[in-house]
C-alpha cells in the first residue's frame, strides 16, 4: 500500500470523512434585477 502524502485520497490524521448526504432542507431562492434611479444627468462636453 502506498501511503505517500501525495496520495490525496488518504485522509490526514484527525481528518474526518464528510458525510455523503444529510437531512437538510432544499429551498429555492430568486433575485431581482436593478434598474436605474437618475440622480444627476449632465450632457458631456463634445471634444
Amino acid at each position, binding site marked *: 500500500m502506498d501511503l505517500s502524502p501525495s496520495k490525496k485520497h488518504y485522509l490526514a490524521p484527525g481528518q474526518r470523512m464528510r458525510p455523503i448526504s444529510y437531512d437538510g432542507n432544499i429551498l429555492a431562492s430568486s433575485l431581482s*434585477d436593478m434598474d436605474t434611479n437618475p440622480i444627476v444627468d449632465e450632457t*458631456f462636453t463634445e471634444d
Partner: protein
Amino acid sequence: MKKIFSILLVGAAILACSKEKAAVDSPVAAAPSDVKTITVSLPASLSKVAFTPAAEPDGGVALSWAAGDKIRIISGSESAVYEIQPGFEGHTASFSGPSISGSSFTIIYPADFESESAAAAGDPFANQVQNGNGSTDGLKYVAVLSGVDSFEDIQFNEEWATAHGGSFRQNGVVRIREQFPAEVKSVDKVFMHVKVGSSSMGWISLDFPGGADISSDHILTAYAALPLGDMAIPAAVSIDLAFATGNYDTYTRTLSFESLNLLAGKVNTFNLDKSKLTLQPFYDGAGTETRPYLIGNARQLGNIEAVLVASEATTVNYFKLISDIDLAGNDWDTIVANPYKLIHFDGDNHVIKNMKTVNGGSYEGGFIGILYGTLKNVTFEKVDVTSNSNPSGAVCCWAGANDETTWGVLENVHVKGGSVTQNVVQQMGGIAGKARNASFTNCSVEDVTLTATTCSTSTGDNGYGGIAGWAHTSTFTSCEFKNSTLNGGRLAGGIIGYAPTAVTVENCLSSGTIKAKKMNNRNGEVAGGIVGWWGGTALRNCTSTADISTENNSAAGIVGQVGVNNLTVEKCAYKGGKVASGAHYAGGIVAYANPNTTVKECYSGGTVSSTSNHAGGIVGFANTDVTVKDCYSIGSINCGAQCGGGIVGELSSGGSVSNCYSMAAIGGQRVLGGIVGRACNAAWDVTVASNNTVTACIAWNPSIICTDTRDANSAGGSGTIVGFTSVKNTLSKGYRNSNIDYQPSDSEYAGHGVDQPDCDGTNWAKGTTPGTGKKYQCPYHGTAAAATATVTSLATSLGWDTAVWNLSGDRPTLKANPES
C-alpha cells in the same frame, strides 16, 4: 443623523507632467479636505452574487447567483447556513442546509452576516475595489427578509416579504460616469463624501488597482455598492467627489441637492460633465504636519512656491512626496518666496530626476532658493544646475538664516549624477551654496561634477565644497562627497570649501577629485579632502580617498588650512589618493596649520607632494606651537623643493611631534626627514631656540632620497628622523629603520644614518653639530632599531597608549580609525 457610509482615497501609478504654476489660483483654499486613506476594503468573500450591467449606457444591472453563495436563516436562537446547489441559473438557485424550525424567520444574504444588524452596518462599504473602467466585479449584494413565515421558494423582494408577513431590505448601487479632460488617461481612485452642511454623513472610496483605463473616450464609469436600505436625506445635502488619476492629479467637484434619495434595489446614476471639474494643486493634503500637501507629479512640485508666497511668515508649510518625479523636458524654476517662508519637505525617499534649473533672478539656481526649515528623505538624480547670480547648490542657494532664529535642516538628502556650475563670484556646493545655522545629516553628492568658472579677484573668499561652499554655525554629520569632481577656486573642500567659524564636521567621507584652480588672477589654493579652509569647532572621524590638488599653495587629504588658532583635527584618515600642491604646503591630513593646532589620532595612506616646499605625511607646514600626536603615514611624500617629512614637513617652533611613525618613502630636493623635514623656526639658524619636541617617534621609512646633490654647506641637510633641526629642540626616544636607504644631498653622510643620544635642547649630540664647511648638516637620527624589531615592538617599548593604538600587528593602527 446616522452616517450612511464611511471613507477613502489615495495612491498608485506614476506619470510625470509639466510644471504649470500659472494654472494654480489658490492652492491653499482649493485643497481637498476630505480625502483620506484607509487600507481595509470590502471582503471579497462577502457576496458572490454577480452584477451584469445592461448593454445600453444608462441601463441598470442584472443580478445572478454564483457558485459558493450562501444564505443564512435565523429562527429564534437557531441559525443555519444554506449552501447553493449545482444547477443554479440566473436569478434562481436552490440552497441546502440543516433543518431549522419555527414560525418567524430572518433570511440574510450573504450568510457572512450573522445578524440583521451586522448586515445593516455601513462600514464594510467604505472601501471598495473594482477591476477597471465600467467593471462591476467588486459590487456586493446584501439583502434581508425579516419576520417572514416561510423559507420555501424565497424571493428577495418586497412583494414576497409582504405576502409572508415580513419586510424586505436590500442595498443599492451607485454608478458615477465622469467625463475627464483629454489628458487624463486613467483613474486610480474615486472618493465620494456625503455631507449635510459641514457634517459628514459618510463616504465611499473606490480603488482601481492598476488604474481604470479611460484613454479611449476619457469617460470613467465607476460602480460602487451602497449599504443596506434607502439613503434618504430630506435636507440640503452635498456630495464631494474626488478623482485621483494615474499620474497623481486630483480632480474634484461638489454636487448640491435640496434632498437626496439613493434608493435600494436601484442603480443610482450620476452622469457628470468634465467642465465642472477642478484640478487640485496637490494630490491631497492641507499643508499641515498631520496632513501635508502630497505631491505626486511635476506640476504639483511646481506649486510649492505659490503656497510659500501666500503663507504667513510664522507658518510651517508641510509637503510630502508620494512618487518619484521626472522633470525631464521641463526647466525647473527654483522655488523662491521673498520674504522667505518656512517649509518642511519630506521626500519620503523618492527621487526627483532631471532637474535643470533656469537662472532667472535672485537666489535661483537649485531646487529652492533659501531653505528655512527642513528638507529630508529625497534624492535628486541627474541635476543640471547653473547659477549666474547667487550662491549655488543643487538643493539650495542658502540653507538657514543669518539671525539664528531659523535653521536649515537637511536630512538624508542626496544628489546623484549631473552637474552644478557657478558662473559668478559666489559660493558653490553640491547641496548648498552657503549654509548658516544649518545642519546636514546623512547627505551625499555622488557622481556629480561641480565647476566654478570664475573667482573673486582679490580678498573676497567664496568657498567651493562638495556639500556646501561656505558654512558658518552649522553641523555636518555623516555626509559624503562620493566619486565626484569639484573644480573650484580658492578654498575648496570635499564637504565644505570655507568654514570660518562655529562649524562641526563629523563622520564625513570624500572620494573623487577636488581641485582649487587659479581663476581671475586669484591663486588656486587651499584645498582639502574634507574642508578647504577650517575655522570651525570640531573636525573628527572623517575620511577621504579623493585626489586633491591646488594650482598654488596648500593641498591636503583632510584640511587645506587650519586657519584659526587653537583648533583640533582628530581621528581623521586620508586612506589613499593623491595630494598635490602646486606650490608650498602639502599634507596627508593638514597642509597648513595655524598656531596651536592639534592633530591627533590621524593617518595618511596617500601620496603627498608639493612642487615647492613643505610636504608632510600628516602636516605640511606647522606654524608655532602645533601638536601632532599619535599619527602615522604609510604612503609617500615628495617635496619638490625642501622640507619634506614623514609626519611634518616644517615644524616651526614650540611644536611637538610624539608617538608617531612613518613608513612613507620620502623624496625631494633636500631637507628631508623620516618624521620631520625641518624643525628650526622655519629658518636656518640652528642656534635659535625653536623649542620643538620630537619624541617617541619611529622612522620606519624605506627610503629618504634627495635629488639635490650639493654638499651640506650649500644644500640643507637631511636626517632619518629629523632632516634639519635647531640645537634647541628636545629630540628623544627616536628609532629608525636600520636598513633605511638614506641618501641626503651631501653624499658624505649617505647610508643608514648614525645613532645619536637624546637631546634635551642643551646638550647637542656629539658628531652632529654643523662643522666647518657643513653648516646645513644638522640631522637627528635617533637609534637604529634591532634587526628583529617591528614598529609595534618599538611602539610597545615606548609605551604608546593602548587605548589609542592597536598594537596587535607588525605595525600599530589607530583604534579610532581602522584602515579596513
